[in-house]
């Protein structure tokens, strides 16, 4: 760490502020990518969660459910 002694203390402080802002952005970008949508639903009726009925419906689907897709002629 010899090279740090050659920098003026004031510039060292500015450097540390600059680096801490970069670390802040990195932490938030990484957290956003890792956690994705890890959220806790605190509403009483679980308004923002999938209900058990929906989950069991999705689990009991056949492997390849028939899909019907409609297209407009113009698109």
């Amino acid at each position, binding site marked *: 760490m010899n090279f740090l002694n050659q920098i003026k203390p004031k510039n060292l402080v500015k450097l540390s502020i600059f680096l801490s802002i970069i670390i802040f952005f990195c932490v*938030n970008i990484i957290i956003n990518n890792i*956690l994705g949508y890890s959220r*806790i639903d*605190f509403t*009483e009726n679980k308004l923002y969660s999938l209900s058990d009925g929906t989950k069991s419906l999705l689990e009991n689907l056949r492997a390849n459910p028939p899909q019907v897709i409609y297209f407009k002629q113009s698109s």
Partner: protein
Amino acid sequence: MNTYFNKTYIIFDRELRGYFRTPLASIFLLVFLALSSGMTFFLGRFFERDQADLIAFFSWHPWLFLILMPAIGMRLWAEERRSGTIELLITLPVTNTQLVVGKFLASWVFTLIALVLSMPIWITVNYLGDPDNNVILISYIGSWLMAGAFLALTSCLSTLTKNQVIAFIISSISGFILIMAGFSLILSAVRSWAPVWITETISSMSFLSHFSRIQMGVFDLNSLIFFLSMIILCLWINIQLVQIKKAD
């Protein structure tokens, strides 16, 4: 370790009492309560909405804090520097970290008092209907976290100047940028030349989008980490700035 926190507590205690020794506390509490309930009933149309929730109350908090948090945070360091008491403070056997954290915690707890005093609106909504109290509790916690982020920002920026008015205006403007970060007002300036990931990062820094999710009752871990890391970043910069500016 115990004496370390003791000193922080002494600074905290002195600052918190300082709020109540001056008319600042009563004026701030009065203005906060009057504005927040006025906005709930007149702008938020609490009765006309006919729903048992406090969305009409909480959705104004980012805008209220934009003006009120700089008002209680602007004096933290600008006043010390103007009156010269910062020199006395620095010579005392406390570290800069203890000073910054103690002063910040005092202002943060002061906002907690203001939020607790807005309790009658919670009693009102429980008397009139059957609201989801979990959502209200989470909204209060989210609101307090957001207030902390505003206060840390203000505290950090008030170190830069000796003039409280300048500290107030700078922190209001930077608070406004942080609130609006997710909206096209700010994004359109960046979108034309920057790659997508920069635009997305800026929009994920928006106070308003984080708070609106918390207010629905969905607590995002990202939001918790965002607000806490914002507080830690601002306080860290604050500690560094006190180090530079103490002799100015």
